[in-house]
């Protein structure tokens, strides 16, 4: 394995500017035109790098989702805390009484 940086091969996984804007929209991150150009290059470099995974035959392999070598633990379905509204609201950028406040959603 070489410690170098594989460049994207072909256009198979290459993102265009429209795709970058679509991803930014899905991620709820505002991007300007200059950022779209930079991000396109950087994201394509990363996608080009991970493309080597296509070499691996994964026929019959079960996906591994986590590092814990154990079954998920179940807990009793009981209330363990509560009545801490002030603590929960303490870091709110804006609040209205005992509620988080946001810009108007419904006219």
């Amino acid at each position: 394995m070489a410690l170098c940086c594989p460049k994207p091969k072909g256009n198979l996984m290459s993102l265009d500017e429209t795709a970058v804007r679509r991803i930014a929209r899905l991620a709820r991150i505002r991007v300007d035109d200059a950022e779209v150009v930079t991000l396109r290059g950087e994201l394509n470099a990363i996608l080009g790098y991970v493309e080597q995974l296509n070499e691996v035959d994964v026929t019959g392999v079960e996906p591994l989702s986590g590092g814990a070598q154990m079954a998920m633990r179940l807990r009793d379905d009981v209330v363990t805390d509560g009545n801490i509204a002030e603590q929960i609201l303490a870091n709110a950028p804006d609040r209205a009484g005992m509620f988080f406040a946001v810009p108007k959603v419904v006219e």
Partner: protein
Amino acid sequence: MSLTDLTIAEAAAGLASRKFSAVELTAAHNDAVAALNPRLNAYITTTPEHALAQAAAADAAIAAGAAGAAGPLTGIPLAIKDLFCTAGVRTTAASKILDPFVPPYESTVTAQLLAAGAVFLGKANLDEFAMGSSNITSGYGPVENPWKREGSDAKLVPGGSSGGSAAAVAARIAMGATGTDTGGSIRQPASFTGLAGIKPTYGRCSRYGIIAFASSLDQAGPLARTVEDCAILLGAMSGFDARDSTSAERKVPDFRAAAARGVKGMRIGIPAEYRMEGMSAEIDALWQKGIGWLREAGAEMVDISLPHTKYGLPVYYIVAPAEASSNLARYDGVRFGARVDGEDLIDMYERTRAAGFGAEVKRRIMIGTYVLSAGYYDAYYLKAQKIRALILRDFTEAFAKVDAILTPTAPSAAFGIGEKMDDPVTMYLNDVFTVPSNLAGIPAMSVPAGLSSEGLPLGLQVIGRHFDEETVFAVAAAIERAADFTAKPSIIAGGAK
């Protein structure tokens, strides 16, 4: 010897025998922090008065002291990575989006350290949301590595993401520190700063109250100046916690005793795939030295193969961003953190996240969003999870033949601030040796083993079976004894080396 130069084990003995007080020990560290932190930027927030109050309480506990009544860390001043929530003390994850955040609760790991008597000097700098290998992505400025190349004053990175933790302990402005390790974030900075650092088995330390990056990979662990100090810290940090659904219901072993075990008769695996084209010759030479040391100490070396090693990094750069994009969805300017007003709710979200996140965090959120999006999930995320299973299988097969695995920690020594910045993938390659253990969930430790030709520290990595940190500590301690690493950094409390 000055108080800031002691190991945790030495300081605990000194406190117990009343050679000095916890207040004296903490005051010495507060002074050192005040003198060096403006230059190193190892702490984002310092809490000197809080620390002195905790130290006074430690002195009271020692004075009241039926033997053993005080905890194992009573009066020991530590740095806490600013990714651990600390009740009433600002916690930023080194992100401007959390700049105003003051947690109303304490993480389990820090609560356990406090219960063991520890003193917190402040919150250590890191790469933003722990995403990075250099500490350059911090929203609060880079950290300077206290080590210098011989004959050069160039500022080097301390590694990352636990770069502030590492720089603080190396410069003797903390006796030990907490870190977190998602792809190498404890081990790589430990290697870059001449420290010991362990990422324990996934599930060993509770993730409750640690700001999440990639939940299936994140693990807390300690950085310290000796293997024994790491064992003491990890003992206090570990244990079952019902508030973390992946916390392991297992007894915490005596790690300190394990570190003293020795390696006679052990079988140590040397994986062929970690000898990489382009790796520096001195890293390879150090690895050979480590092999020699363990053989002399009575271990048997076994050539092994971990055939999917080269796919570890690309798998990581799908899995970690995918989980990050999901975890970081919560930063929307509504419940906590910074907000930038917009024309409507969506505009407010988009402006808040554009202003609050740095470039690396945005890149990773967007990669994660893409690989999880409709039409791409199977090709990227599911495929990566299947190869993750093959990486675990490599280790499982290897551990049928060996007790532990020895590798280099990182492919190079610390590099300059501003180097390796040309594209994201170059920076990612720092983690090539550390990422596979996170993907497999197994414990791995970096231990200082020597200096590069430029006088910079280099670490070796010991990897163990699930929940067998004891063997990892035993092997790391054997390397530590043989390496006899006594070099000190240029920038250090109490003056130059």
